[in-house]
């Protein structure tokens, strides 16, 4: 029998209630006094409230919270489970939504005289709610709910520029393939339940010892999750969707969806044993190699960054491989993954955000030829993009380097030195296309200015400093974020 809500339940429900409250408030207000300012204001208020209610958990390093038995916090009879590190990643998702919102203020909000404004602001609150549920899911119901709640808004948001072919294609492609993935996911859950009779992460352990039915279910479950995380061979949608979607939405997808899906995968990862680390390491290497190979040939900076995201997701699987190889390392691997997700997230936000600003100067194009020399003409946006690219590449002094370092250190610690070496070499390969972005931005002579002059976007230019500063700050002072 479900009793009254415990403090733990409230703690994990509060951010969701803030977001849901924001959605309802926006919809109600829209019926009576439609105005852009109100909607944006309410949306930011809801995101702020959600972050504020998540903060105590994110801050609780090592010490249990008042009235809550131990960490990680388990809520709703164990359907949700979150550690302080997960909460930090949750904050990242909220921040990503906020940044996407700020970047949209002067662009997406004004599309077709603001007809899609309400949809934009409500969906920008629903998507992070789905991410928060996904990353804390420890039951089939919450996992599925979370993934659907984060995906559906993104399908719509990707297609928000409905007069542009690319955007519509992105939305449709994402939707169709995403629906397949959801099908896999739910089918896998059904088989797992049929085979093991469980719906919590324990089902994975039971399935590995169980029959063919449950094992097949496990395969479907992982296929669904790996699709969301964009791991080869389920990564083919990424470049098209990221390119076609409006750039602020791409930023949200890159930082938020990836983080949520990765933590879900970590929660649902099989315990060490039968599956072994080899499978994960192989997937990781294949993903890195394919992403690198594809990225080398791209002309569009958004596609390059999208494929860089695929490579980063692949790198995360090395952490799973480390977990498999050294069973006792759960806490430190989870810390490494949390840090990695935050590091990648802030770098991707800075990269896509700065790219959005540069794109507007280049008449809406993200082709290398259109962005030639823009880094020198627009030193702030160009500098932030360059910094973010360096962080994605993993240059010391940036968050990205430490993220990669922590993951590879876990791998070496678990005894997989050969795999680590291979992974580092694959990472090195990726420098080729990261450098290309820098060459385009700085070393080519500027393209003639085309298109109408861009609107001065002060809020976006100011907001971009947040991820940019975090990239450097986490790169030189990772202690607070890493120890969670």
């Amino acid at each position: 029998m479900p009793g009254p809500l415990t403090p733990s339940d409230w703690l994990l429900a509060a951010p969701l209630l803030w977001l849901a409250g924001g959605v309802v408030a926006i919809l109600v207000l829209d019926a009576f006094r439609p105005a852009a300012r109100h909607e944006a204001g309410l949306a930011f208020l809801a995101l702020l409230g959600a972050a504020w209610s998540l903060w105590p958990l994110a801050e609780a390093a090592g010490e249990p919270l008042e009235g809550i038995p131990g960490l990680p916090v388990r809520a709703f009879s164990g359907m949700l489970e979150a550690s302080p590190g997960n909460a930090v990643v949750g904050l990242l998702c909220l921040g990503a939504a906020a940044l996407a919102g700020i970047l949209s203020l002067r662009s997406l909000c004004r599309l077709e005289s603001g007809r899609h404004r309400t949809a934009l602001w409500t969906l920008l609150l629903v998507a992070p709610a789905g991410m928060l549920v996904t990353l804390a899911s420890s039951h089939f119901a919450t996992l599925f709910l979370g993934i659907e709640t984060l995906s559906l808004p993104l399908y719509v948001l990707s297609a928000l520029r409905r007069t542009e072919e690319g955007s519509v294609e992105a939305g449709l492609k994402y939707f169709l393939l995403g629906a397949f993935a959801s099908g896999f996911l739910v089918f896998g859950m059904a088989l797992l339940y049929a085979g093991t009779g469980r719906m919590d992460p324990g089902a994975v352990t039971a399935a590995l010892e169980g029959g063919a039915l449950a094992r097949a279910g496990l395969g479907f479950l992982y296929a669904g999750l790996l699709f969301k995380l964009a791991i080869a061979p389920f990564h083919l949608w990424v470049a098209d969707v990221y390119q076609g979607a409006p750039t602020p939405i791409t930023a949200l997808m890159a930082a938020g969806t990836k983080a949520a899906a990765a933590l879900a995968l970590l929660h649902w990862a099989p315990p060490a044993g039968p599956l072994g680390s080899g499978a994960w390491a192989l997937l990781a290497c294949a993903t890195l190699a394919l992403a690198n190979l594809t990225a080398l040939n791209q002309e569009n900076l958004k596609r390059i960054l999208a494929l860089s995201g695929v490579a980063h997701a692949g790198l995360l699987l090395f952490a799973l491989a480390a977990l498999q190889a050294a069973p006792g390392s759960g806490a430190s691997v989870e810390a490494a993954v949390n840090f990695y997700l935050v590091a990648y997230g802030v770098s991707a936000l800075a990269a896509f955000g700065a790219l959005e600003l540069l794109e507007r100067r280049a008449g809406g194009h993200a082709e290398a030829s259109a962005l030639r020399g823009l880094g020198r003409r627009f030193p702030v946006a160009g500098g932030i993009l360059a910094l973010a690219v360096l962080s994605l590449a993993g240059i010391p002094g940036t968050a990205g380097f430490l993220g990669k370092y922590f993951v590879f250190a876990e791998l070496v610690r678990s005894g997989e030195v050969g795999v680590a070496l291979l992974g580092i070499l694959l990472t090195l390969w990726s420098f080729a296309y990261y450098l290309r972005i820098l060459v385009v931005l700085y070393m080519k002579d500027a393209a003639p200015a085309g298109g109408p002059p861009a609107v001065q976007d002060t809020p976006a230019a100011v907001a971009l400093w947040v991820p940019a500063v975090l990239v450097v700050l986490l790169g030189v002072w990772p202690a607070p974020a890493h120890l969670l």
Partner: protein
Amino acid sequence: MSDYLLTLITFLPLVGSVAVLLLPKGADNAVRWTAAVFTGAALALSTWLYFVGFDDGATGMQFVEQRSWIPAFNIEYFLGVDGISLPLIWLSALIHFVAVFASWGIRKSVKGYFALLLLLEVGVNGVFCALDFFLFYVFWEIMLLPMYFLIGIWGGPRREYAAIKFFLYTLAGSVLMLVAMVALYLMSGNYGDGATFNILTMHELAGQWVADQGTFLGMRFTTWIFWFLFVGFAVKIPVFPFHTWLPDAHVEAPTPISVILAGILLKLGSYGMLRINFPLAPDAFAQAADFLAILGTINIVYGAYVAMGQTDFKRVVAYSSVSHMGYFLLGSAAWTIEGINGASLQLFTHGTSSAMLFLIVGVVYDRAHHRNLNDFGGLAQRMPFYLGLSTIGIFAGLGLPGMSGFISEALTLLGAYQVYPVLVIISTLGILMTAAFLLYALQRVFLGPLPEKYSGFQDINGREAFCMIPFAALCILVGVLPSLVLDKMALAIEALQNDLAPFFQAVAG
């Protein structure tokens, strides 16, 4: 102040870099003077450190700063200076200070240029001061980026190619270093008080992990640690066959960047070998010494041989750098006191003479806008003062007695002769060829009839002279009074030599 001296020397340029970025657009002169003030401050502090603060008679690290940085991995902010790093820190401060004045004529994106130049100094000074391997690695990589941009944006016609080649070569090397670093960190966890990146602690532990080492992929632990680190550092020196990025980078880089590259960046690889590579895998070093000596000889002879065939003045000087850095390898492979002293002194003397040579090339390039040696001649008639300074630089470069290059090369060969007499005899060929190509270059630039198109050339101006005179003075001063540098290094080198000598005896025995 002396508690934070090394931090100040390392990070003052960073403050300068930020200050430069905050200056308004178009304030080019303010930018230049800001850069000059901050590099000047770092130079003043390191001069104080060199002549006053540093105690020649004390062993071990001085001016140590040690604080926890990333506790989860026991990574520390750990700085210190000893006789091996001291001359290089001072040289770095001097070269960056001079480079600011040599860059006065840069017109393209002045703010960005000086901000990157100052950032480069942070990385270089940091590498020489860092005693925590992780910190060392961070500084090592920080240095890579400004250099990449400085070549790639302000370079010559093939700048993109040269910049990417430089970047990829160095990066490939540093990735190997990264793997070795993590392995050493984990190895150190098996002894003493848990895993550490502390270079000095690793140095003490080295004997233990040599004694009971395991294997990895069929090779002994120290063997692959040694080779990973060696390749990482060798790229930077550069050791044959990893040297091909150097001439390209030099030819495309603007003059001041070439000065920094030859003057101090090439020394980082050699410093890394002395500080990390050799002491942390001593048995593998002793076993590989013969091979390293051969590589050093190849560098000396091959570098000089290729330099003879060049017509681009800058390429001549670039290959002469390859040749000169070979002495370091030959001298340290012999691992005698004289050899190591000579090798370390060579780092300092080559830093001054090569910086000088690149400034000399810069002067003619600024006037003629080309560097083709066959197209010059007779400049002595128009530029007598320039001829005088150039002669000092070139004679220092070819190791004339009384000049700094002579002392370091003679010491190196003296030290190496005790172990590798045949290689030393072969490498004297390099000296001969170096004299040949440098004098031939001097002749083609200054002597003979003056072509009509060069008759309007002005002799070097005050700023150019200001850049060259410190190096000219050092070339002569260290040639006459080598003890100015050798006394600083003596104790540190003796201690290092003593520590590793048993491994050489083990190989010989």
